[in-house]
């Protein structure tokens, strides 16, 4: 067993990066079929599986032609990217907003204009509230049709929520009518996706692969999206936050 382990380590080491491995610039030249000037680098490439692998990956990345069966999917993803655009990323939007307000409030005229606008809005709303009769509920609303159901457009989460003293056994939410499946998304508080899974029922058991990504003391956010038979979103839940291992902590005193 020890020998097998040793052997496996040797194979892994043979494929790992070494100090002599080619730089990204060298790989870029090779990917463009420009030979490397020095013999040492060429000799290294000839015997290093890692560099050969990196070169193969770079060449595959650079060849934009999709395989025959993936053309439609690639076009769809590219269209999604184009539609969302880089501006849609949270960082860009935030920077854009800040840049606008920063430049806007540089001018004292702009500040004065905002103040005048606010005073006018306040004055007009005060005038309207004094001169308009109090709103009355319509007869229809006072006597609602019992067959007409006003349905909430969001999925209601049950738990986990808040600070927990142990790993939750499941994620639960209320069933949403007309739903074929539910997509459960677990993210970190900064929005980084941790895990995503689609289930048929309104419960998701916390299996080992979920347990492995849930760490003590770290806050997580989860959300559920109800999907129809075609996989389209029907309704979504709010974001629910929870954290494990922060409640009823047992303090152990070592003597």
């Amino acid at each position, binding site marked *: 067993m020890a020998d097998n382990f*040793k*052997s496996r380590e040797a194979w892994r080491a043979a494929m790992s*990066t070494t100090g002599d491995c080619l730089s990204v610039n060298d790989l870029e030249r090779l990917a463009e079929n420009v030979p490397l000037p020095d013999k040492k680098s060429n000799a290294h490439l000839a015997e290093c599986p890692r560099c050969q692998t990196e070169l193969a990956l770079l060449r595959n990345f650079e060849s934009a032609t999709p395989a025959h069966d993936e053309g439609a999917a690639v076009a769809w993803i590219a269209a999604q990217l184009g539609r969302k655009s880089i501006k849609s990323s949270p960082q860009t939007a935030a920077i854009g907003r800040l840049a606008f307000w920063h430049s806007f409030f540089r001018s004292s005229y702009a500040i004065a204009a905002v103040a005048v606008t606010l005073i006018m809005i306040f004055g007009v709303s005060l005038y309207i509230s004094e001169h308009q009769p109090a709103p009355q509920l319509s007869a229809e609303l006072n006597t609602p049709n019992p067959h007409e159901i006003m349905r909430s457009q969001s999925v209601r989460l049950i738990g986990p929520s808040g600070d927990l003293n142990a790993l939750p056994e499941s994620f639960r939410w209320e069933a949403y009518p007309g739903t074929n499946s539910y997509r459960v998304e677990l993210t970190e508080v900064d929005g980084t996706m941790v895990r995503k899974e689609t289930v048929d029922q309104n419960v998701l058991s916390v299996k080992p692969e979920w347990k*492995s990504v849930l760490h003590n003391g770290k806050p997580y956010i989860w959300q559920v999206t109800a999907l129809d038979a075609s996989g389209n979103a029907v309704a979504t839940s709010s974001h629910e936050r929870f954290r494990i291992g922060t409640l009823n902590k047992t303090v152990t005193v070592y003597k």
Partner: protein
Amino acid sequence: MAAQPSTAPQLYPVQTDCTADRSDEKRCIRSGQQALASSPSTASVPERASSSIAIIPVMQWEDLSDEALITKYRSEAGGSAAEQCLNELFRRHHTKVARWCLGFTGDRESAADLAQEICAKAYQNLPSFKGQSKFSTWLFSIARNHCLNAVRARGNAPAMTSEEEVVDALPDLGSHDPLASLERQQSASLARQIMNEALGETEKVVFTLHFSEELPLDVITRVLKLENASGAKAYLVSAKRKLEKAVTRWKARAHGAVEGENNGR
């Protein structure tokens, strides 16, 4: 047994330091201008190339190289022209990133999410782009690291059991022979030598991606666009068979050499 995370250092660590110093910025602007001057549109119109300042406003975004777009994006910071530069820059690489991500996920929805994350990360780190490589190579390093991390983080790495079936079955390099005491570095060197002698190019790449980067075989098949019937699996099985033979041959040679040495004494 849980899959072990790869301990191999990442070949292309992505710089996240977004405070480019002034000298780097100048160098980058210079390289962008050089790229602009040598772009096909300017090269084909020599009279224009003589006055690069005059031609920039009349050039379409499509005519500028990636590096020139970045230069312009930086010089027009905050304006609508900067935004157009940015959109054009990323639009050019959408297909590459989309295809790359589809290879890693296999379904278009997850691939779209992954691709969006990569573009956002690239945008976020754009200030650290020094222009020492092409923009697409820089984007590749981000996409590569992001997708490998995503596959590992989402638990899609091949189970250790399947790895053990193959790796444990591989010939043992260090038992019952005079080389049992080989140091790790020597063993690695020997393993690399055997791989180079025995395996073809694609076999080596598949073997490395599966056992070093822990990529599942279906991902390797898609990423490398292998079009044979059983994809990466065929290359892995073939590699294993060839390595077994090569190691047996090597052991026989090493054993013979030691016996000869002993007889000589």
